[in-house]
């Protein structure tokens, strides 16, 4: 009886926790003019206070610590290709890449405000307006897609039953193979 209770306990432990893992992940996106992101462990637990570094090439640009929710933010970095490196301690390191084209192209509208002071042609102003509209549209789109990207990233980090069962199968199979080799040799 005692044996069975223990077995049930161990099995239920496995059932409850299959969605949780021990993999560190960092995920980031361009939020307006800043880079925002979060550090978490597979399964969704947040890495509180993890150190996050913003790098270009191997050069450190900025460094910050994640808050209680595992979230962080770099204000106003120059648009460009960045690597993010999160360190949650004890060798739990994760990296993420943000490419230059994720940044909104604000250069057109920013330059426009200065240029329009000189020659104020009607159609040129109209063109600038259209460009600003496009930038705003893009920003709105990014905002809508963001939760989806988040969810996808976390889904990928989850552990699924078939992985676990497959792993156990591999282990038993490998030892079986070893056993087979031994008996052939013997």
């Amino acid at each position, binding site marked *: 009886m*005692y044996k069975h209770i223990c077995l049930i306990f161990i099995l239920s432990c496995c059932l409850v*926790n299959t969605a949780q893992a021990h*993999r560190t992940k960092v995920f980031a996106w361009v939020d307006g003019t800043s880079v925002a992101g979060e550090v978490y*462990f597979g399964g969704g*637990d947040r890495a509180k206070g993890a150190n996050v570094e913003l790098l270009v090439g191997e050069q450190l640009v900025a460094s910050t610590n994640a808050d209680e929710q595992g979230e962080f933010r770099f204000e106003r970095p120059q648009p460009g290709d960045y690597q993010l490196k999160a360190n949650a301690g*004890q060798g739990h*390191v994760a990296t993420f890449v943000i490419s230059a084209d994720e940044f909104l192209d604000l250069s057109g509208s920013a330059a426009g405000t200065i240029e329009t002071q000189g020659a104020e042609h009607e159609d040129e102003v109209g063109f600038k307006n259209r460009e600003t509209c496009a930038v705003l549209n893009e920003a709105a789109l990014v905002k809508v897609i963001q939760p989806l990207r988040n969810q996808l990233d976390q889904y990928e980090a989850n552990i699924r039953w078939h992985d676990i069962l497959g792993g156990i199968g591999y282990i038993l199979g490998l*030892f079986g193979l070893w056993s087979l080799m031994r008996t052939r040799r*013997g």
Partner: protein
Amino acid sequence: MHIADGVLSTPVLVAGIAMTLAGTILGLKKLDDDKIPFAAVLSACFFVASLIHLPLGPSSVHLIFNGLIGLLLGWLAFPVMLVALILQAMFFGFGGIVVLGVNCLNIALPAVMVGALLRPMRHHIPAQLLGFLAGSGAVLLTGIMVSLSLYLSGEAFSKTANVVFWGNLPLSLLEGVISGFIIVLINQVKPEILKGVHSNV
């Protein structure tokens, strides 16, 4: 416990791979035919134990069961854990591929040490205490080895060691209690497992 790729320096990585290789060869030499099914089951047990994961402090911990495996299998801990760690790295992304050697060493060497220390005492102390000492001792040793590998790769030792030690203390107590229960169970259900382990010392 699973260190990711890109954290450790090359000499530490190479040393880890070399020592794990040596341990694995030694373990495979001691793997008798009648031990193979038992080793396979414990390997699967270790593989699954890492999925039982508890949020603790700023980090998160999971059970390891390396004390238990060291107590029951001795040097066989190396091949048993290497197989499970390779699969964990491949399937779940726990730790990196290049650091497999260091990760395996950090987990298997404490298992071997605890096993060698406690196995001679197994008839003199109660099973519950035996399991507790094996479980908690191996986790603490693993914590020390993890901080040591980080230190040798250039991280400030006192800071990481502090974090690792205090982070692992509750885990080591928990693992000790659970290992204690498992040893008691094994002692009642299949006492010959505990009696027979001396052939692998």
